[in-house]
């Protein structure tokens, strides 16, 4: 193999690599939407802890998560390190969400400072995952 052929092969690999990475960008959008939804729903349930609010917000949250899951399942490309990234995001989110809701419901029902801070904290893991997914989609390789 000559130098020119090697260069051509590297350029071709880079081109294919970039196209596939671009298709992996969907996870950045998915995680960003998850972050916004978790902020809104946590705040909604926390600031208005009535049975009606919980009864309305909980099914809406389930529908939204199901919709996001279907969207994710239909994507043709799982971005690089997707499994670990998603597990880390959901793991951190679960700990923060459970802590915010359990402690908040017991000690700070309807307290804006607690639920505002908690909702923002819950949204941090999805937003970090979104930023990371966006960065690896743009990261050059070959």
């Amino acid at each position, binding site marked *: *193999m*000559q*130098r020119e*052929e*090697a*260069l051509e*092969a*590297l350029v*071709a*690999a880079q081109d*294919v*690599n*970039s*196209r*596939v*990475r671009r*298709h*992996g960008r969907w996870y950045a959008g998915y995680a960003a939407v998850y972050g916004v939804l978790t902020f809104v729903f946590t705040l909604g349930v926390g600031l208005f802890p009535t049975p009606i609010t919980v009864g309305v917000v909980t099914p809406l949250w389930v529908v939204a998560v199901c919709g996001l899951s279907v969207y994710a*399942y*239909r994507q*043709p*490309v*799982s*971005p*690089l*390190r*997707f*499994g670990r990234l998603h597990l880390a995001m959901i793991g951190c989110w679960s700990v923060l969400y459970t802590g915010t809701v359990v402690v908040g419901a017991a000690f700070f029902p309807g307290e804006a400072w607690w639920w505002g801070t908690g909702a923002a904290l819950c949204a941090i893991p999805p937003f970090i995952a979104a930023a990371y997914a966006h960065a690896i989609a743009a990261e050059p*390789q*070959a």
Partner: protein
Amino acid sequence: MRHPRAKLDDVIHAPVRFSIVAALAAADQADFKFVRDTVEVSDSALSKQVSTLESAGYVKVRKTFVGRRPRTYLALTPEGRSAFDRHVQALRDIAAGVQEPLNTTD
């Protein structure tokens, strides 16, 4: 001095297989049809090349359903990823005109 072409991987070296592996190296897994369209080959050509890569232990194939539709996902194995990295490094060395000294054991 040893030319870096000696480090090229024979399985990955074929142009279509190289493109397939380059596509899969950029993802955890990708849909068969997506890879077919990205590499611009027919279904049968892709199946044939994927079989070769699968036999070499470089690619794993996973079949599933999305709703009622069957879907086939392709992914690089850790061995396939390492082989691709070595192959790309050999290409970079060739492009850079690097020559390696022969080991005394060679």
